[in-house]
């Protein structure tokens, strides 16, 4: 139970689940229980039957729970009792779920053998349970990643249905949810698995989810993948080029037109899980200014880290020769590109950056150039002072595994569903940087209609204090906004609207809100005289 002033700590509020909700939860948990038991090799045979049973039980549990929660109720916002329930108010069950999830991620990343992964012989345990499905899709036995991918997809689909039902009155929410369900099922799960079927002795493509873009997909340009792409002929080269164009051309265009939401809340798998399974925890994000400060430093540090790491990794294998691009040329291109971006921002967008952002940008830019410079002057033998491999494994461990997985999802019930997206995702940071400076997207506020109720801020998963802008009549243009549109949905007075419009006048700070008929020109002139 929380310690701050919560008027409902009486515990008398209707926090209890209905009978149907309890039964459906039990049904879903039974599915999980089968998978858990299978870890101890209790000999579920035939596997296909037990796997199907467990997956169906989970799906049926979620759907039944959804029906029990929303069916028969009028369409509308369904946040009643969110802060009374133990699971969604950092109570006992929230911590239990947090422990279970973090535990799962730790096993998944660091002890896959506990799940029954066996690279030498036949799988056992949970991984073996999933073998039939994996063989049906890709023809190969399952791995811990296949188990994870299947459960991940199941979560997005199941809880996606729940979200669709919850917001059935809202077309924006519905379309967006269909979209993340589609990209997860198709692009992240089925297509890469089926693509693996095409692989043979002289043609091999790496596992590639086309919409998992570098730097989120931080390993996309590692040597083994690049070698695979190149050896796979024109298809592989095409995919490699697509990977490069994705970050350099495609995402900037789409982000300019629609804001970063096109990716973060319509396409991305991390976003997909956050928006569906993570939706019940969205209000737990920290809205304080301190959290915002931490977010800016942390997420941009990760960007710098991933740029340095990837540059070092790519450089080190290019430098060994055998590629049409030399290591040196690559380094010069990276330095030129960064210089171009930096110069553009400093020349055209300087006034839109806060002081600390400016200092940070200069600092980071100088740091990267200095490191590249150090290398060329021969002062440091290693690019960026460390072995590329050290950088890579550190990033993979600290960011790839701990941050995005263990903390990012494991802490959903404690810190909210977008911890990773907000504090750690370098992709979100790059898109956000662009969204802030060069995009048509904004959340418009509706004249003087805001009553400062705080629903928008409370339910912002990215921890943006939306109300702070809305009550001033100022549009919301924030780099972290993923455009989920929930602020606009929960607003009781119709104040917020996500829009793409001309970039001019996107940020519109107002002296006096609409509705008060003071002579604004008079006021502006007087203020100038002062």
């Amino acid at each position, binding site marked *: 139970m*929380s310690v*701050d*002033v*919560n*008027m*409902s700590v*009486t515990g*008398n*509020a*209707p926090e209890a689940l209905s009978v149907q909700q309890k039964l459906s939860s039990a049904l879903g948990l039974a599915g999980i229980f089968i998978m858990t038991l299978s870890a101890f090799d209790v000999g579920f045979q035939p596997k296909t039957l037990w796997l199907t049973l467990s997956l169906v039980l989970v799906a049926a549990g979620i759907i039944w729970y959804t029906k029990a929660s929303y069916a028969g109720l*009028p*369409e*509308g*916002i369904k*946040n*009643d*009792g*969110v*802060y*009374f*329930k133990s699971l969604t108010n950092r109570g006992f069950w929230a911590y239990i779920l947090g422990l279970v999830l973090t535990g799962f991620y730790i096993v998944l990343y660091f002890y896959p053998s506990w799940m029954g992964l066996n690279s030498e012989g036949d799988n056992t345990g949970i991984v073996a349970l999933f073998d039939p499905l994996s063989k049906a899709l890709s023809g190969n036995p399952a791995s811990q990643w296949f188990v994870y991918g299947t459960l991940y997809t199941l979560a997005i689909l199941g809880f996606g249905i729940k979200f669709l039902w919850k917001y059935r009155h*809202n*077309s*924006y929410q519905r*379309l967006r949810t269909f979209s993340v369900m589609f990209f997860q099922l198709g692009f992240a799960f089925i297509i890469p698995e089926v693509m693996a079927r095409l692989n043979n002795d002289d043609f091999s493509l790496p596992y590639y989810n086309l919409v998992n873009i570098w730097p989120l997909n931080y390993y996309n340009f590692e040597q083994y993948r690049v070698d695979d792409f190149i050896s796979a002929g024109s298809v592989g080269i095409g995919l490699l080029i697509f990977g490069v164009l994705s970050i350099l051309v495609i995402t900037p265009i789409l982000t300019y037109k629609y804001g970063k939401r096109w990716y973060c809340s319509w396409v991305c798998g991390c976003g997909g899980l956050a928006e569906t399974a993570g939706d019940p925890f969205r209000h737990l994000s920290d809205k*304080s*200014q301190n959290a915002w400060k931490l977010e800016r430093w942390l997420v941009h540090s990760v960007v710098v880290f991933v740029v340095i790491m990837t540059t070092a990794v790519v450089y080190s294998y290019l430098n060994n020769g055998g590629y049409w691009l030399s290591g040196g040329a690559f380094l010069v291109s990276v330095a030129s590109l960064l210089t171009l971006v930096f110069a553009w921002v400093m020349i055209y967008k300087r006034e839109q950056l806060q002081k600390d952002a400016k200092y940070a940008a200069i600092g980071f830019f100088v740091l990267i150039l200095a490191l590249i410079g150090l290398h060329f002057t021969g002062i440091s033998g290693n690019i960026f002072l460390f072995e590329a491999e050290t950088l890579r494994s550190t990033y993979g461990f600290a960011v790839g595994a701990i941050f995005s997985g263990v903390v990012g999802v494991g802490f959903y019930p404690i810190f909210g569903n977008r911890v990773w997206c907000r504090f750690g995702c370098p992709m979100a940071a790059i898109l956000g940087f662009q969204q802030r400076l060069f995009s048509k997207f904004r959340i418009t506020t*509706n*004249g*003087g*209609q805001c*009553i*400062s*109720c*705080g*629903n928008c*801020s*409370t339910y912002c998963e990215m921890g943006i204090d939306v*109300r*702070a802008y809305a*009550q001033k009549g100022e549009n919301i243009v924030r780099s972290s906004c993923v455009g989920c*549109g929930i602020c*606009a*949905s*929960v607003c*009781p*007075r*119709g104040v917020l*609207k*996500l*829009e793409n419009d001309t970039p001019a006048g996107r940020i519109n700070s107002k002296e*006096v*809100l*609409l*509705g*008060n*008929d*003071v002579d604004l020109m008079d*006021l502006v002139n*007087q203020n100038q005289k002062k």
Partner: protein
Amino acid sequence: MKQEHIVIIGNGISGVTLARHVRKLSDKRITLISSESEHFFSRTALMYVYMGHMKWNHLKPYEDHFWGKNRLELKQAHVEHIDAEHKQLTLDSGELFSYDKLVIACGSKPNKFGWPGQDAEGVLGLYSKQDLEQLEAWAPNNQVCKRAVIVGGGLIGIELAEMLATRNIPVTFLVREAHFWNNVLPVEEAKLIDRHIREHHIDLRLSTNLDEIITDEIGKVKAVKIQDTGEILDCNLVGLTPGVSPNIEFLKSSTIELNRGVLVNRMLETSASDVYAIGDCAEQREPIGKRPPVEAVWYTGRMMGETLAQTLCGNPMEYKPGHWFNSAKFFDIEYQTYGWVFPQPEEGHSDFYWEHEDGKKCIHIHFESDSRIFKGINTFGIRMRHEVFDHWLTQKATVDEVIRNLKKANFDPEFFERYENEMLEAFNK
């Protein structure tokens, strides 16, 4: 030079808006006095705490460090007396507190019309933080509160009904008018909301008045008696929500001129020098346009705060609210209004009403019959742009122009179904 000391009684939207703007414009010393809560909170959002959508801290629009950082002094006290001659306040602690300029922004209190039993335990309004705490104590669930009766069919009454319903407490809602909020809404909209209230399983009793509140031997509510029929309804909670009136009891011992509220002129000055009044508690000596002299609305409180801040900072400015606007949400149906729509079109005015077949969305437009000048719109279940309607009202656009261009005014989220063509078709018939 010593800075002028501005003392504000009340830390609601009016007082806080004033304080913020004065701080933006000057270095004056500012003190906000309130006995209700330490920090400013959004009164309109009280309901969401009881419903479990938010916690108390979420109602506060500014973080707690905001006040110190902006040198806005907060004093938790209740003002007992104002001595306008010596510019001095007497606080409940007995302390004397001096001011250079005094702003009364003390808001409203719920109306009570002398019903027997209206002060019993278990009877409350829904206005203050304390009301919320009472409600939590008296109606935590449907075991403790087996039925609640709400008296008064306005915005607060329906909020209270929605709140209690989320805890599965059966609610009987007594509305004096023939339909919900029919003294403000035209009958079409009022009926639409009637249906929606009943869809949420509220026992809505129209054209029904309260006779008395019946208490048990220890003075606790046990039932209400309904006028006319004499029916007795057992209940554990009575919500009295027949509107609010200025909270001016504590001013009666002062020399400040009062009527229903604190009388002010267009400069928001009271009869005492260097004493001003803004927000719910202020009463305009001369009503402004078609506005009532006392306006208990979030937005007008805010606008008075914005205006008076200019005056206090050496830029004297009359309070000139622009075109009327308001909004609310009735359970799941949002309502916005721009300009004037009355229960009946005024003399020489006509109206246009369109309702969607689902019975949950509608618009109602009033206009001058001869000149066809647009006067106002009610919109339910469809969001509209404030700026566009404000512009149309200023430009005296005709109803035809408005209907033809309604698309420009739409503020619904992307991909929502649009009804402008349907409306235009209905209008042209």
